[in-house]
Structures are given as structure tokens and as C-alpha cells.
């Protein structure tokens, strides 16, 4: 036992490149990592840092535009880059299992779940017939799928999101791999499901003594599963340390900056908001979606996405709405702006009911209520210049004066959100995610709104950028006296920004109150569940 043990996975000087060989774009540079049997290494980093490319390079499944520029990957001492392509197929699935971020696209929609698991077992374990079927059912049971005999015969669309990810894990484990690579396996899931999936992955890893390479951008998730943590920045390894050491005292400045940017779920002093008459008052708001059937698409039934919601927002106040995906948060936000037809209720803005206004009367009021979306890429017409995008509201509302006057206002707005005036002549795709979100905020500000509905504006951003956007929103609130209806699933962000919070569950608000009360003394059972599922960092 004294012989120097060969590590399960050893990455030596890995380099991944894009573009022309003469002037390559290096995405991963000189990366060294080791994973022992039974150990979980968590690779953390922001988007574009090369985390996923590293995982793909290990299995030699890089996208066509990328290539391995150098280095070595040894699995159990065997150089994977030296193997012929045919031998690699025996490594993938059998010795290395892979779990992807999006179970929706990683599963074949026209194949039964059982067959997709069986395919791997048939290929790698040489099982057939009844033995195979029994093994498939066993695999599904192991990942916590109820009634596995029946569920094995179902198709992916009959599974919920969490069950799909469980099925993906069953497929990854079907070949009894020595190493499991999980690439952001819980990012697409709600916190309660995330907690379950993380637990499952850890249990399976311990039971089988597998090595695990776990990729995430979330420090909370990393704390929960890691034995060791490695931080990647722009394709380079910044720091690698055992979990406790890393979380107690991160050595590198970059890691420290990332920790500082994390929104923390803790009590803090919040400036009081004048409790004068509310700016916006929503009563019994309902939004329904019709279910149509038959040749003439008659409406046979309706789904209540938002079911009798009441809330109010004062001037200069931020009300956060939290809830899991599908709870009706986004639908409510759009309903308040009447971007969707309302089924009932009233939306009083300064005493005037927007729900009863005619279309043309509403159009003039729209300048008071604006919206910022989650996906800043989809939120801007890719064929318009940034200046035209920001000026759109002024044109639509007929404000801002002449063309030159609008251009001056656009420059002013861009400066206000931390961009340069000359950015008005660029296209949206030339900007990073955070910069694009700033443009979207400038567009909303252009019509001097009183209230902005922020629909998960930071969910697609890295933590450091998220912190900057939150700072910007807070600054704008102080400066312009704006009110925010802030829709999010991130409770840390709520604690950071909001004055009050409303918890939504299945189209209803189950609890509402000041942030400190709801988050630290929750009254409703669902709020408690939600809080318990949030991964905590010591």
C-alpha cells in the first residue's frame, strides 16, 4: 500500500484552443488537476472560464470549432488522448459517466427512458433480455424514481424536470463508471429539486466510491458536494484547495472577490420607506391561459397561472417576489403591465385602475411602468443599434423632442447606467451580458418610469456582474426614487436588495411581509421548505 497510488484522473497541462492555428484563441491553458477515487473535485468559475470545455476535453467530445492544443489526460494511468477513437467509445459511458445541465435536451424525446438506460448497459455490460430489464428498473429505483417498472416504459415528456435529471443520472451511472462528470447538473432546477439531486449524487458517489468532477458556478452548491475546490478564471487555474481551507481563507484575490460579490442571506439594516399612499396597488389579480381543443380550437378549459394575487408597492420601495419556476411570478409581472390579458382583479396605479383602461389610454400610462427581462439577449432586437433601442420608448411616447434631443438624452442615459455615449452606435451582440442588461435598464429609464418590473434581471449573470447590476439598481432607486417589483428565485438577492418580499406558490402569494420577518422568521410551511433548500455557505 506504500506504492505511490495512481490517481483516478490526472490532467496535465491541458490546453484547449479555438480559431486559426496561427493565432489561436486559448480557452483552457496549462491546466493541472487530479482526482482520487472517492473524491469530489468541484470546478468553479464564471461563464466562459473554460469549465465545461475542460470536462468535454476529458471525454474528447469538444465542439467542432475547438481542439485540444496540448497536454495529457490520464484515467487510471492510461493516456486518453493517445487512445484511438474507437477505444474512446469504450471509455465513455463505461469508465466515465456524464451528466449534462439540461436534461430536457440531453434525453432523446422519442425513446423510452428505460431503453435509454438499457442502451448503455447493453453496450458496456453486455446485458440482454430479462436481466437487462431488471437492471434498468433497479437503476431507476436507485435514483429515486417511484414505480420504476412503469416509469421505465415512459417517455421523457412524461417526466417532470427533476425526474428527468434523475433519469440522466441513471444513464450516467448505468455503465458503472469510475469517474462521474457532472456539468452544472442542478442549474436548470429549482432549489428544492437541487437539494434532492445533490443529495442523490453524493449518496451514489459514496456508495460506489466513484471519483466525481463537478462543475458549477454556485459557491453554495460547491460547499455542499466538494472535497476539494478548484477555481478557474479565463481558462487558467487560479486556486485549488481542500474545501474547508478554501472556504475559510481563499488565497487568491480573484476568489476573494467572488466571495465578496456573493449576495448573502443575512439580516442587515434597511433604509425605511415612507409608508404614504401606495404607488401601485394590485387586488385579486388573476391571469388565465385557455386550453383549446378540436378543429375549431374551442376553449375547453382554463389554467389559472395567477390566482387572486394582492400586493402593494410604495414609492421608492422594492418588493421582491420569490418562488420556484412555474409558480406564476413572471406571468404576474406581465399581467400587472397588461402585457397579458387579465382574467380579473384591479391594478391601481396612483389610484387609477389600469385594468379598466382602454388600449389607447393605457398606451399613454405605459411610460410610468417599465420592465427589465432576464434574458438580455432576447430583450433587444439584434438588428437595431443600441441608441435606437434606448430611444424606442421616447419615439413611441412622443417625448424627448427632436432627433438631436433624443440623442442627447440617450447619451445621458447610457452614462447613467455606466456605459459610454459612443456605445449608442454599436449593436447589442457586441456587449457582454452585464453590459446588455445595463442597456435594457437604460431603455426602461428613457421614459421616466415610476416603477420597473425586474423579471430575474441577474439570473443569467455571473455573481460579480450580478453584484454590479444590483448596485446600479440600488443607486438608481436612491437617485430617482424608483420602485421595483423584483422577481427572482434567489433568496440571497432578496436579502440584499428588497424592502419587502412576497412568496409565490402555485399562482398564489402564500406569505408577504418585511424581508427580515419572512426570511428569518417564516410563517408559512412552503417558505420554510424553500429556505431550508438553499445551499448554505459557512
Amino acid at each position: 500500500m506504500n506504492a505511490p497510488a495512481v490517481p483516478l484522473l490526472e490532467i496535465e497541462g491541458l490546453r484547449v484552443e479555438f480559431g486559426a492555428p496561427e493565432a489561436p484563441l486559448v480557452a483552457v491553458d496549462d491546466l493541472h488537476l487530479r482526482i482520487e477515487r472517492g473524491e469530489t473535485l468541484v470546478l468553479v468559475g464564471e461563464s466562459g472560464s473554460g469549465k465545461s470545455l475542460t470536462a468535454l476535453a476529458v471525454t474528447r467530445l469538444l465542439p467542432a470549432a475547438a481542439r485540444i492544443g496540448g497536454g495529457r489526460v490520464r484515467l487510471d494511468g492510461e493516456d486518453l488522448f493517445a487512445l484511438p477513437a474507437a477505444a474512446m467509445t469504450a471509455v465513455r459511458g463505461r469508465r466515465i459517466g456524464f451528466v449534462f445541465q439540461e436534461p430536457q435536451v440531453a434525453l432523446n424525446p422519442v425513446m423510452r427512458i428505460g431503453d435509454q438506460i438499457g442502451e448503455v448497459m447493453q453496450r458496456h455490460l453486455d446485458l440482454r433480455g430479462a436481466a437487462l430489464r431488471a437492471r434498468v428498473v433497479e437503476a431507476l429505483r436507485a435514483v429515486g424514481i417511484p414505480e420504476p417498472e412503469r416509469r421505465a416504459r415512459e417517455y421523457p415528456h412524461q417526466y417532470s424536470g427533476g425526474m428527468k435529471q434523475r433519469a440522466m443520472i441513471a444513464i450516467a451511472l448505468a455503465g458503472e463508471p469510475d469517474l462521474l462528470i457532472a456539468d452544472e447538473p442542478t442549474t436548470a432546477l429549482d432549489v428544492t429539486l437541487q437539494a434532492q439531486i445533490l443529495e442523490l449524487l453524493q449518496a451514489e458517489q459514496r456508495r460506489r466510491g466513484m471519483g466525481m468532477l463537478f462543475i458549477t458556478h454556485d459557491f453554495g452548491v460547491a460547499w455542499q458536494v466538494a472535497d476539494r475546490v478548484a477555481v478557474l478564471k479565463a481558462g487558467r487555474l487560479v486556486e485549488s484547495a481542500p474545501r474547508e481551507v478554501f472556504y475559510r481563507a481563499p488565497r487568491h484575490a480573484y476568489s476573494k472577490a467572488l466571495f465578496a460579490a456573493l449576495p448573502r442571506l443575512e439580516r442587515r439594516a434597511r433604509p425605511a420607506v415612507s409608508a404614504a399612499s401606495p404607488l401601485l396597488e394590485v387586488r385579486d389579480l388573476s391571469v388565465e391561459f385557455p386550453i383549446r381543443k378540436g378543429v375549431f380550437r374551442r376553449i375547453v378549459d382554463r389554467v389559472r397561472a395567477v390566482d387572486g394575487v394582492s400586493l402593494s408597492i410604495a414609492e421608492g420601495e422594492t418588493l421582491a417576489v420569490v418562488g420556484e419556476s412555474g409558480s406564476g411570478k413572471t406571468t404576474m409581472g406581465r399581467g400587472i403591465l397588461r402585457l397579458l390579458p387579465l382574467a380579473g382583479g384591479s391594478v391601481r396605479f396612483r389610484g387609477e385602475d389600469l385594468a379598466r383602461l382602454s388600449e389607447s389610454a393605457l398606451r399613454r400610462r405605459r411610460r410610468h411602468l417599465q420592465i427589465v427581462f432576464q434574458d438580455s439577449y432576447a430583450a433587444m432586437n439584434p438588428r437595431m443599434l443600441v441608441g435606437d433601442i434606448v430611444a424606442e420608448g421616447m419615439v413611441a411616447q412622443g417625448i424627448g423632442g427632436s432627433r438631436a434631443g433624443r440623442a442627447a438624452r440617450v447619451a445621458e442615459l447610457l452614462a447613467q447606467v455606466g456605459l459610454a455615449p459612443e456605445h449608442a452606435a454599436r449593436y447589442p451582440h457586441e456587449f457582454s451580458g452585464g453590459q446588455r442588461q445595463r442597456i435594457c435598464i437604460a431603455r426602461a429609464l428613457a421614459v421616466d418610469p415610476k416603477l420597473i418590473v425586474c423579471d430575474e434581471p441577474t439570473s443569467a449573470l455571473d455573481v460579480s456582474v450580478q453584484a454590479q447590476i444590483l448596485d446600479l439598481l440600488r443607486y438608481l432607486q436612491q437617485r430617482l426614487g424608483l420602485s421595483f417589483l423584483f422577481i427572482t428565485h434567489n433568496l440571497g438577492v432578496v436579502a440584499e436588495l428588497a424592502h419587502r418580499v412576497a412568496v409565490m406558490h402555485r399562482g398564489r402569494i402564500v406569505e408577504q411581509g418585511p424581508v427580515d420577518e419572512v426570511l428569518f422568521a417564516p410563517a408559512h410551511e412552503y417558505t420554510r421548505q424553500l429556505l431550508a433548500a438553499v445551499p448554505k455557505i459557512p
Partner: protein
Amino acid sequence: MGEFVVLATDACLFALLGVGLVYWAIARRHEHLRAPWREVWARPAAAGAAVVLAAFVAIALADSLHFEARGEEEGDLVSLLDLALAPLREHTETSYSAPFATQAYARETRRTAEGQVRREYPRLAYGGAHLAEPAQRATDLARRASAGVMLGLAIFALPLLVAAGRERRRHGGLAAALLAIARGRTRGPWRSVLGVTAVLALLVGLSAAIAPYYHVLGTDKVGTDVLYQALKSVRTGILIGSLTTLLSLPFALALGVAAGYFRGPVDDAVQYLYTTLSSIPGVLLIAAAALLLDVHMSRHAEAFDSLAARADLRLLALCGILGLTSWTSLCRLLRAEALKLREIEYVAAAQALGARAPAIIRRHLLPNVMHIVMITTVLDFSSLVLAEAALTYIDIGVDPSMESWGNMINAARLELAREPAVWWSLVAALGFMFTLVLAANLFADAVRDAFDPRLRRLGVDAAGLAESPVR
């Protein structure tokens, strides 16, 4: 040259050219429009095909400038192309003659000076008429061909020097630039462009040297030069291919985008309209419309100045009918895209800003469906050129008096049944059509690849490396 005459299709073709120029001017200023065209240009096959297409379009445009003829043909319409091809147009024989022939294809009964009746192959009025003996043909052809090659090379020298001049700076010197072009080491696809240009220049040079003295592609039943016919047919083919889409575009765009954006009753009405239209067999609709038009024209014969104007109107009508039967597929595509776009967040943001529906459609929907229009237009072009041939073959296409590849192929039906067979009309028509359609298809492929966002977003984009912040 007489008075300038503008036929209906001439006006349409030049309007189309104007639209193209306006689009070019707009595209030059907008990076999102310029980038895909740069990508098309970077593909050697597409760049070569573009040269061929440009040559065809140039022929069609030259054939669309009409004048009233003077002199013996008083009253007829001639085009710029006719003037350029005057020798070909005027050198008509009495009947069939094979390519490069000096004698007719069929024997004629002649009475010799001695009063004997003989059946022989008579000499042609123009083909090889300058030769004293038909046996001299081979040497004469070789001499003229070498002169033609020289002329072709002289024509080719101009684009070659222009290209080398443009590349000179990067490669240091004219000779180095020429070498780089020959090796395909330039940034632009000069090698394929110049290769295609060289072939075209040689063909032009050879034709210019030989065609006035021989019928390069033979003559048809009434003795018309087949090369002339084939060249005249270019305009018909191009018109059918481009005008049809242009005529169907307003319907497809307006109805498709409106149906997708407004949904509800508008969508229902548009959907019922195009499902009904597309369930009627297209050929039936075209046959019925062609018949109606024929009856109308013979009742109002006095309304048309000339045969040419009449044939021209019939061509325009054919484009309209073809457009009417073909807008449904584009409309369906545009409706689906508009349905998708109306749910996208920048449209929601515009609604939240209080923008009206026409402004949203103009600013956000139309620019984002234009790639579909572009792809459909170029993909449909070649199938429409082929459709013309098929429809004319069954006599519901263009006017029989109008030169078109369909008419040439239609005539070849009987010619092939002759003994010995007359094959050159068919071969000429197929050759020209094949070249045009192949070039159009190659070009269309590149356009689709460059404009289709689904194909474009592969590669680097997928790895998330496309995010490059502005500094």
C-alpha cells in the same frame, strides 16, 4: 435607332434592379446585413456562381432596353441585345442546319444549269458562305478560333489586372499578387472568380470571332440561329425566376406577418385562405388562368400595339399566376416566424413602452424575417426557371412567339422524332438552363448557410466564447 419603348416586364425588371441597388446601399451601412454577404462572398463556389449569375443578368438587362426598329423592320421592337447580336439575328437560313454546318440539313430538289433535276444539300445563305469550298471549313475555323481565343484573353486581362491591383498592397508587387491569386492564397475568392471569368471571356471571344460566319449552335426549323434564340431566352428565364417571387412577396409578407402577430381572427382568415389556395393543384389554376387570358386577349386584340407587347403581357400574367400559387409556402414560413417573434422579449418591451402595432411590425418583425425572404427568393429562383420550361412544354406557359427555353424544348419534341434527329435546339436550351440553375443553386446554398441563424450559431458561439465585452 428609334424611339425608346418600355414594355411592362422591362419596367418590372428595372424596378427590381432598383430595389436591389437600394438594398445594397442599405446593406452597406448595416453590419448585420453586410456580415452574411461577406460570408457568401468568402465561399469560392458561391463567388464563381455569382459571376455566372451576373453575366446572365447582364444579358437579361441588355435585352430589356427596347427601341422601335428603323428601316426594313419598321414597327418591330428591337433590344440592345438584338443590336449587339445583329449578325446572328439577321442571318436566318431557310430551315434546319447543324452546328458549324455549311450546307443545309435536308436535301432539296434543284434544277441545275443543264436542266437536270438533282436532290442535294444546298449551301447555306450565311453559314460558311464566305468559303469558296466547304472543305476549307476546318482551316478557316481553326484560324477564327485562335483569333477568338486571343480576343477572349484580351477581355480577360482587364478583370485580372483589376484583381491583381486590389491585391497588390497585401502581397507586395503585381507579380506576387498574381502568384497569390493563382495559388488561391488571397483573402477574397479571386481564383474561382477569375477562373469563371476566364471561361466566360473565352466563350465570348470565340463566339464573337466565329458566330458571324457560322451557326455555332445550328439553326431551327425556320432557320433562326439557335445561339441567338438561347441568348434571347435568358431574359425570359430570369424574369420568370425573379418577378414571380417579387409579385408574390407583398402578399406573403403582409398576410404572413399580420397573421402571426395579430393571431385570432386575422390568423384564421389568412390560414383558411392559404390552405384553400394550396389545396388546388397549381397546374390546374395556371391552365385556367392562361385560358382566360387568351380569350381576353383575342377579344381585345386592338388594345395591343404589337405582337411583342402582347407576348410580354402574357409573360407578366404568367409570373402573376405562378406567384399567386407559390406565395402560400412563404406565407406559412413567415407566419410561423412571426408567431415566434411576437413572444420574444424585445417585442414585449416595445409593447411595454407603448409602441403601436404598425411600429412594432416595421421595426421588430420585418427586419427579423427578412433572412427568410432572402433565402426563399434565391431558393425559388431555380425551381421557377424550371417550372417555366415545364409549363411551356404543356402549352400553358409563355407565348409561342416569345423566345424561351421552354419553347425551344417544346419544339424539340418533334425534332427529336425526325430521322436523322435534330438535337441541337434541345442541347442548347438544356445547356443554358442547366448553367443558370446550377449557378443559382450554388449561390442559394451559400445564401442559406450565411443567413439562416440556426446554421450560423454553431461553433464558437456554442461554447459561450462569443461574449466579447466592448471596451
